[in-house]
Structure formats: C-alpha cells, structure tokens
C-alpha cells in the first residue's frame, strides 16, 4: 500500500481502523486537527507512542465544540482521567462515537453518560434540571423546569424509582428516530 506518512506505523493505523469507524485518511486528518490545537505539545511522529495529553481548554476551544453547552461533559466522558484532558486515543474515540457510522446503542450509552452529570449511573432529577437549563440557557422559569422534569420522569421512568437508568434511556432512544442524526458531530 502506498504509505507516505510517517506519523503512524502501519500496525497502528490498522489498529485504529479496526477499533474506530474511521478510514486511514480520516484518522490522519483527525491527527492533524489534534496537532493543530497545540503544535508544540504534540509531536509529529507517533510511532513510539508518546504520552501526550491536551488540556481541556484547548479541546473546548475547537470550533466544533466551542458553542456546545455540553462540551465539558463530552470531554469529561471521553477523557481518560475524567477531567477533560484528552490524549489522541480519547480524541479519536470521541469523534468516532459522534460520527455518523456509530451504531445507535453505542451513541445511546455515551449520551447517557454525558447527561449524567453526577456520574452515578442514573439520570436523577437534578441531572435533568441541569440538562434542561443548559438546553434552554436558563430561559425557562424554575416552575416550568420542574414541570418539564416531572413530565420527563413520568414518560420515561418505567420502574418508578424516580430516576432514569440506562435501560430507560435506551428504551426512550429507540423511540426517537432523530437521535442518530442529532447526536452527530461532523469533523
């Protein structure tokens, strides 16, 4: 195969191709995007697997993420340390899951984690309130937010424990055909 790049070894590219939804060209393109965020921190040669982590502020300043109200949660969910500082692996993983080839279940799993602000594997009422406030930029009154959260729990909570588990969330996502097209970042 014609291989003119020296960033990755062939095995590394193969491994990335098998574990993400990207082709070789896209992986290289994403690497260059990653490198553009901090050219002095990221070496141009990844063949000996350097350990480089970009701080959250750089990730959050990407044009695809900078105006997204959930950008901090997205970075935290996909980062290894849970703080939003991402290695190249985390970066590729994030955009692979948010690409259009990822299956619905995988996206639903990560969407659940993103909306679970306190990381307790349940979307409880406080998580819901935070989500609604971020969605509407605090335009709704607190009573309206409360009403919305109650109605959401009424509709989606099936075992009546007052919070949404992963199964409840997945069951609701199955009923939403638009989810695949909205939970998608083009890079």
């Amino acid at each position: 195969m014609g291989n003119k790049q020296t960033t990755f070894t062939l095995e590394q590219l193969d491994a990335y191709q098998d574990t993400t939804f990207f082709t070789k060209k896209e992986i290289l393109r994403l690497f260059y995007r990653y490198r553009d965020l901090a050219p002095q921190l990221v070496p141009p040669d990844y063949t000996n697997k350097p350990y480089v982590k970009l701080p959250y502020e750089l990730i959050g300043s990407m044009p695809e993420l900078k105006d997204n109200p959930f950008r901090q949660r997205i970075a935290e969910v996909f980062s290894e340390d849970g703080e939003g500082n991402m290695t190249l692996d985390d970066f590729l993983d994030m955009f692979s899951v948010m690409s259009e080839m990822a299956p619905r279940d995988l996206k639903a799993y990560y969407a659940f984690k993103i909306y679970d602000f306190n990381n307790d594997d349940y979307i409880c009422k406080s998580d819901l309130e935070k989500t609604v406030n971020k969605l509407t930029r605090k335009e709704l009154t607190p009573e309206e937010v409360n009403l919305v959260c109650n109605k959401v729990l009424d509709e989606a909570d099936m075992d009546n424990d007052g919070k949404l588990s992963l199964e409840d969330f997945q069951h609701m996502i199955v009923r939403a055909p638009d989810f695949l097209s909205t939970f998608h970042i083009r890079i």
Partner: protein
Amino acid sequence: MAHTLTFTFGPENVSQTPSPYDEGAVHDSFHQLIQEQSWLAEQELVEMQEMTNVTSRGRENLAYIVSPARQTEACEAPEQTEEHPGFSSATLRILASMPSRTIGRNRGAILSQYYNRTARLRRRSTRPPLQEVSHSARPSLRQLGIDLDSSREEEDTKRNLLVKELQSLPASQRVNMLQAMPLSLAEKRSLRQDSSGHSGTLRKPKTTAPLSHCSRLKYYVIIGFRNLWYSWLSFLHTLQPWHYSLKQISGRFGSSILSYFLFLKTLIMFNLFFFLILLVFVVAMQAAYPPATPNNETFTGLEPLTGAGYFSHTLMYYGYYSNFTLNDPCASGSNITRCWQSQDVHLPYNMPLAYLFAVGVAFIVTCILLVYSMSRSFGESYRVGSASGDLAVKVFCAWDYKVIQARSVGLQSENICTQLKECLAERQSRSHPLNLCNRLQRLVVLLLAWMISLGTVLGCVIAVYYFSEYIHQVHHDRLTRSMQTGNEALLLALPLLVSLINLLMPYMYNFLAAWEKQESPVLEVYIAICRNLILKMVILGLLCYHWLSRKVTSSKIKCWETYVGQELYRLVMMDFIFTLLDTFFGELIWRIILEGKKQSKQRPEFDIARNVLELIYGQTLTWLGVFFAPLLPAVQILKLVLLFYIKKTSLMRNCQSPSKPWRASHMSTIFITLLCFPSFLGASIFLSYTIWSVRPSEKCGPFQSLATIYDSGKMWVTQLEKSNPNLTWFTWIHQHMIQNTFFLFVISGILLSVIYLNIQVVKGQRRVISLLKEQIANEGEDKTFLIQKLHAVYGK
C-alpha cells in the same frame, strides 16, 4: 455487624437457556450479595482509603464521591443521604453494590456483558434478535456463575473469556463487535491484539506451528480482501463531493435543512445511474453510427431553451435513433449494392431492442433502489409504540450537535425553549378541551380552506387544459401553413403557464394555512405538502393525457415522440428558470425588504417542504421524458448541480435557521416515499401505457412501422424461437407468465398475504411491549419493597 444474619431463599432456579428477560430477576442478585457480606467488610477499609484520595470536582453535592474514571475499579461510596434518609450504613453498602448501581462504571460489568453477547452470538448462528441487543444491559449471572464483584482476578478471568470468544468469531464480526463496544480505545486495541493472536500486526502470523499451504493461501486472500475493502472505503470517501459545504450548512442551519441537500444528492445519484446506462447502451452506440440524413436546421440561440430547431434531429430525441441493426449495412436499406454479397455481420447491435431494454432495465433497477431506500428509511424512522413520550424525546434528542455557529446555537436554544413551552401548554390545554362553538367554527374554517384549495386546483387544471388545446391548435395551423417564424416562442407558452402556476399557488396555500391556524406545526407541514402535491400531480396527469391522446399522436406532427420529448425538456428548463426566479425574489429581495422596512434582524426562512416538492416534480418530469429524450437525465444532473450551489449561496446569505420543529428522519422518509409513489409510479404507468398501447409514429424513431412498441420485443422472441428450437421454454415463459394476467394475480395475492402477516406481527409486538412495561413497573415496586424490608432488618 451483619455477618450473623441469615436469609433463606429458595434455590436458584437456573434456566437452561438464558434469555434476556430472566435478567430482570433481582431476587437472585440479592441472594448473592448477601453472601458476599464478609468480603464487603474487608472492602470497607479500601473504600475509606479511596474516599480520602479521590478529589471532588467542584460539583454541588460534596457528599457525593464520584468515580474518577471509567476504567478504574470504582467502589461507590454510600448513596446520598437525602434519597434514602435514615438508612443504616450496612443497608447503604448493600444498596451501593447492587448490580444496577455497578453497571457501566465497572469495566468488569461491561466486559462480562460483552462476553455474554458474543457467546450468544456464537450459539445462534444467525443475527441475535433485536430485543436482546438493545435492552439487556445487565450482565447475565447465570451463564458464568461468576459473582459480580470488582476484584482484579475476576476481571482478568472475564477478560480472558471475552478474548477467547472474540477469537472464535469471524474477522468482520470481530471488528464490528470491537467497534461497537463502549470501552476506551486503548482497551479496545489491547483486546484486538489479544484476540487476533498476533502482536498487533495482521500481516505476518507468528504462530509456532507451520500453516498448511491451503490455510496460508486462504489467510493471504482474506488479508488482501480486507485491505482492498479499506482502500475502497477511503476512495469512496474522497469521492464524497461537497463534504465541506454540507458541514457548513449543517453547522449553521442544522439537520432539517441539511435533509434537503442530502435529498438533492440522492437525486443526482439516481440520475447519474440512469444516464450511465442509457449512455453506454443507447446514446454512444447511436453516436458511433449516425444516420444517413444530415441535419438541415441551423443553430439559433433559442435552442437550449426550447429544445427544438437544431436539437430536434440530434441524439437528444427519440426521432434520431435508428430502427435497424446498427452495423449491418443490409438492414438500413441505404447501400443496397453491398448487400447482395452475404456478409457475416460482426457483433450486430439491434437498436430498437437495445433502446427498449435499456430503458426498461434502468426503470426496474431504479424501482428496486427506491423501494430499498424507502424501506430502510421507514425502518429507521418508525417504531412500534412510539406514540407517546414527546417531551422526554425532545429533551434528550432535540439538541443538534452538528450546529456549531454561535448565532445558530442561540437560535436552537430558543427553539427548544419554545418547543418545551408549547408542549407544556398543550398538556394543559388537553385538560381543557374546546367547547362546541369553537369546535364548530374550526370545522367550518377547515372545510372552507380545503374547498378553496381543491377549487383552485380544478380551476388551474381547466385553464391548463384549454390553454394547451389552444396552443396545439395554433401550432397545428402554423405547421400546415408551414410558417416557421415565432413557432418556437409559441411553444414556450404552455410550460410558462404551468411553471407560473407551480410558483404562485404554494404562496396562496401558505396564506390559507396562516388563516386556518392549525395547532400542531407538524400537521401544517403535512397539509401543505398534500395540497402542493395534488396540484402538481393533477396538472402533470392532464398533460400526459393530452400528449397521449389521439389528437397529438395522429396529428400532422411528423414525430410525436420527439414532440413530447421536447415538451418535457421545455418544462424542465422552465422549472429551472422559475426556481432561480423564486430563489432570487423569494429570498434575496424579501430579505432586503424585511431589513429595510421593518428594521429587524429577521430574515426569510427556507421552506423545506416546498423546495423538496419542487425537486420531486423535476425528477418526475425527467422520468416521464427519459423514453422520449434519452439525454434528459444529463440535463437534470446539470440542473441539480447548479441548483445545489445556487441554493447554498442564497441560504448562506439570505436565510435564517428554521424556527419550527422539524423531525428530520420522519420527513426524509416521507419525501422518499413521495418520490417512489406518486412520482416514480406515475412515470412507470405512463411509460407502460406508451409501450403497450400507443402506436409509434410512422416515419421516425426506433419503432417505426410497428403496431405497438412492445411488438419489437414479441418479434424478437419469435425470431429466437425460429432460430434456435431449443429455446421453446423461453417463449413459453414469455407467453404464459408475462402476457398472461393469472401470474400477476398470484404474485399480488402472495404480496397481500405477506403484508397481512407483518401487520399481525406488529400487533403482537405492541401487546408484548405493554406487557413488558407492566412487568418492569412491578419489578420496581418489588425493589422498593425489598429495600424497605432490608432497612427494617438492618436498621434495628
């Protein structure tokens, strides 16, 4: 401590074939949990250490100890006290290690879930049913008999089991399974490495035993195909045109407007396919063997608009194509002197057959592609039992992550805010239904609006009919008097009228809709689409009837097929010009007016439904005309490419993001259904009628001197039978299956019974879903009951 407590449960009822529905049994997990109490006491020490080490990340509730990462073994600290007030620490500890609390956080849980999934995958050689894949997130404890704890050795065991399972899967399934796992990339890579049995490279196996030549060959073949497949995917990706433009559009306007441009791309693909088939089998062949008579007309500037004049005797229209075998000099009858020597014709090319079959095959393949994409799109957008649950779906699925421009993000927030408010208001208004007077008023308004719209459709249709008769009469008179002047311009009058109607009526329907004031915006869109569709299809139906009626086919026009082809070409061109005008006036001028007059930042909105209907209309014209003008798909491709750039530029400069909610995948399904049903079906009916029942013209085209176009096919079959007596089965098939209607009835009967079966299956699924929901609610109640009991026991 709680060591002394003993609970007696019944023996575990282990079912032999585990099914995902069994995993809802919480009782057994409690049994195992209570048996782990001694282990839990040891873990308490570890927990205390971890609590001091882990830093909280500035969240509101400091009582919450959050797990630092998704990979590390996280032992959850006791649940927040406000949710379970007064529970003792022992109870809380047990609750904290319930299976439902440890799912998703613990790598072991994920791994065991995936081990089970692959094991199940292997046990049944077919694809696992849908229910199993999406709903079971709990690890099945039955199969492994492994406790759900997070000690390192257990994880390693599970991991090894998972690796073994992955190794036994075929390569492509393994890759798919790896890609779909919710683990980190490093984890996936190590799993891949271990399960493929090589040290990261799939090129040279490092097995100790020498492979036989056969398996080595097979191995290289598989690797070769895999590399080929990946390079094909990369190539396809570079071919993806307009990737950056689509990203820009979706970044500013979201998925709804993006769906219009994706639809446009789909149409270009369809037309390209059609054009390629016709190009290879019909156009290129005829171009290689031009007819003997030269083209008398001269090229005036008006041809690209009218399609007549110089273009009448070119490859563009039906009349140009020969009705004999192309490279056989005897058949054309032109050069008889060379014919009396019996020459063998090298690769004879029968033009009429090629013409008929190329168009027929292209239509059949387009039909298959359309039905396939329609069924796939329908499968994605329709869900059994998806009637309720609007608000939850809006909260979690309404935010479009593709939108990246700051102003559009702000607009999107406003949108969602408005939608949520509307939803709340709707819930409240549902509890106060309208009284009788209001309802009657609404009904009257609705009836009146529909009567007006149908009446206008009728009026337009009558106008088009009389106008077309008049134009035809005038054209006829001028032909008999052989006056060429002004003839071409006259021909443009009818397309002008049709396009004008198609441009102005939708605005009238918008006014009607504003007067009607429907409650739900979704219903508004449906009604608008319905009215526009009725108008366009009725006018097209009338024009088709006019073209195929006796007047045109037996009048003085020399070649009525070329005439019909030209009419359709003119309609396509006029449609394009009016779309340009509409974009210019509707968007640019309107924006200038709005900005100047009202001094507001409000800009016109891009009307998706109307634009998509225009695309469908243009495509219908192309499919109607492809038999009479084989180059029409090429014209349509050019038109669509230009339209893409013009619409995109106008959108970026003049429009704002949509303020109404738009269910993108649902509407895409509707659009492709509309493309299939009225549009393609109508064109196929028109084509079938032309082929089976209409007499082709005497002096031009590939089917001269035949009674119907289908006769050429029949002649070919009889010729085959004569030349090769062994092919009687072919003629038998032709006679009894294609010409006999009984076979068609049988096929329709089978289709209807399949549809009925599927309807029953869907009904059954609905019932199962409601039963399962009840079961889940009951389980939840059981769980709370048991927790209370537990607290009662431990709290003493």
